[in-house]
């Protein structure tokens, strides 16, 4: 359930909700970190459930001594009212068999808060690509039917590639075709439930392998930025490398502590 930080709940109607799926390489979560950090979004509440492994730590977006001591938990909600943007960040993995319960609670909150649209940032195993996918861009999108009505024209003008349907049962030659997102975590459940509940949702994902997924996260936010124009290029040069995405201060020591000098 959503618990606001302050006394009263903020008005979220008409806002765009960005959220990650806990997926391969944690790309969606890294991308949401970049968005919250770059736009300096402020925390407005928690999405408190028993569905994710509990975890706490100090403010991952700290920029100075003063703001580095605010406690953060595993699911927090941030907003940027000027752009009508709300971001939900998930910081730990789902407890077994609780992921569908989480999806239900989340979508029920989406409906009751009257969000204008939901965008899920996710990823899928790159080793599961078919031949066509290997030869094309690694980015894909999906729109629920009611989202298609509003966003299809914009998306088409961007020349984006829709996620292909693959055989439901790969081993069977006459199997039906459906959307499969291997390694995508709750992405497919969220998408399918949103289709049936008529929630305007878009899924943006990238084919990735696990490793140092920071470049993948940067790629995914830039893919999102092509559509939402979250940040505009500083100069006339629209190349992605010039866009100022702010790396959060908590992104250090991703691969462990320093090495003992005696090792060398």
């Amino acid at each position, binding site marked *: 359930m959503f*618990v606001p930080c302050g006394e009263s709940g903020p008005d979220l109607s008409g806002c765009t909700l960005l959220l990650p799926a*806990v*997926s*391969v*390489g*944690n790309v969606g979560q890294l991308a949401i970190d970049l968005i919250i950090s770059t736009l300096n979004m402020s925390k407005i509440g*928690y999405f*408190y459930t028993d569905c994710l*492994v*509990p*975890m*706490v*730590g*100090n*403010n*991952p977006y*700290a920029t100075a001594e003063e703001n*580095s*001591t*605010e*406690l953060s*938990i*595993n699911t927090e909600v941030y907003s940027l009212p000027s752009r009508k943007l709300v971001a939900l960040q998930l910081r*730990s*993995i*789902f407890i*077994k*068999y609780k*992921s*569908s319960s989480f999806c239900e609670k989340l979508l029920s909150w989406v409906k009751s808060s009257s969000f204008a649209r939901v965008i899920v940032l996710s990823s899928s*195993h790159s*080793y599961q690509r078919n031949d066509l996918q290997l030869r094309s861009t690694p980015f894909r999108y999906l729109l629920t039917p009611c989202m298609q009505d509003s966003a299809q024209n914009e998306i088409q003008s961007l020349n984006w590639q829709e996620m292909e349907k693959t055989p439901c049962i790969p081993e069977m030659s006459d199997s039906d075709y459906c959307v499969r997102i*291997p*390694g*995508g*975590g*709750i992405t*497919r*459940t969220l998408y399918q439930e949103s289709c049936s509940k008529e929630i305007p949702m878009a899924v943006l994902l990238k084919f990735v392998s*696990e490793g140092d997924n920071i470049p993948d996260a940067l790629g995914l936010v830039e893919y999102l930025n092509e559509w939402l124009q979250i940040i505009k290029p500083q100069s006339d040069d629209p190349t992605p490398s010039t866009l100022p995405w702010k790396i959060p*201060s*908590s*992104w*250090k*020591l*991703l691969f*462990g*502590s*320093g*090495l*003992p*000098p*005696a090792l060398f």
Partner: protein
Amino acid sequence: MAATFFGEVVKAPCRAGAEDDEEEEEERRRETPEDREVRRQLARKREVRLLRRQTKASLEVALLEKYSCSRFIIAVGNNAVAFLSSFVMNSGVWEEVGCAKLWNEWCRTTDAVHMSPTEAHCVFYHLKSNPSVFGSCPKKNMQVTVLTCRHVTDYKTSESTGSLPSPFLKALKTQNFKDPVCCSLLEQPNIVHDLPAAVLSYCQVWQLPAVLYLCYTDVMKLDLLTAEAFKPVLSSRGLKGLAKNVPQSTEILRKLMTANEVQSNIYT
């Protein structure tokens, strides 16, 4: 999937824990109503029971309704528990008011009813002379203190963990905790999981003042140095005035350690 140098392809564990989800979905599709009922029954069995340890009777009234509480102290792990029992619970008279037992499929008994009283995972005590102190609740005036340990290799720092002066204390506090802490705060990107994190998350969300004191140590079994590393916490508001005789408590702790040492006689 990952290819190893030996020419085999193995299923590599996914950092995002996403591997299970496809299998979970498959399982759910193949599930019959009977399977669902079995799963529901299992979920009901995985209950946390609160009861009086001596009589095994369930507590009819919530503990915090029966005993109002201004200070709630939780120790998680053997060294934290050893510290609390030697320094705090050996000063003054503490009365046991209840215990919590939980059951899941990993327990050796078939259900929670058959678990012996000594298998209680959590015992609640309150201080007889000052009943508002609760050792081992969401009342607004309550302050929560959690003590626990972690292995020093879990601590991320730009230096090597080998050079750290372990054991050492770090703290995390909720927004409503306004008192000074007895050690430095846990720096990014370090995090805490499990029960201490669950308690702190709850307190943060419901705006309760809470502090977690985390001892990073390289000895995870019962160890004198590690348990003594919690001593600075005795000056905090959560534990102030609860430890009456520190030298005596240190002696009690020392005795607890030797009693628990397994004497190896392979080489004697």
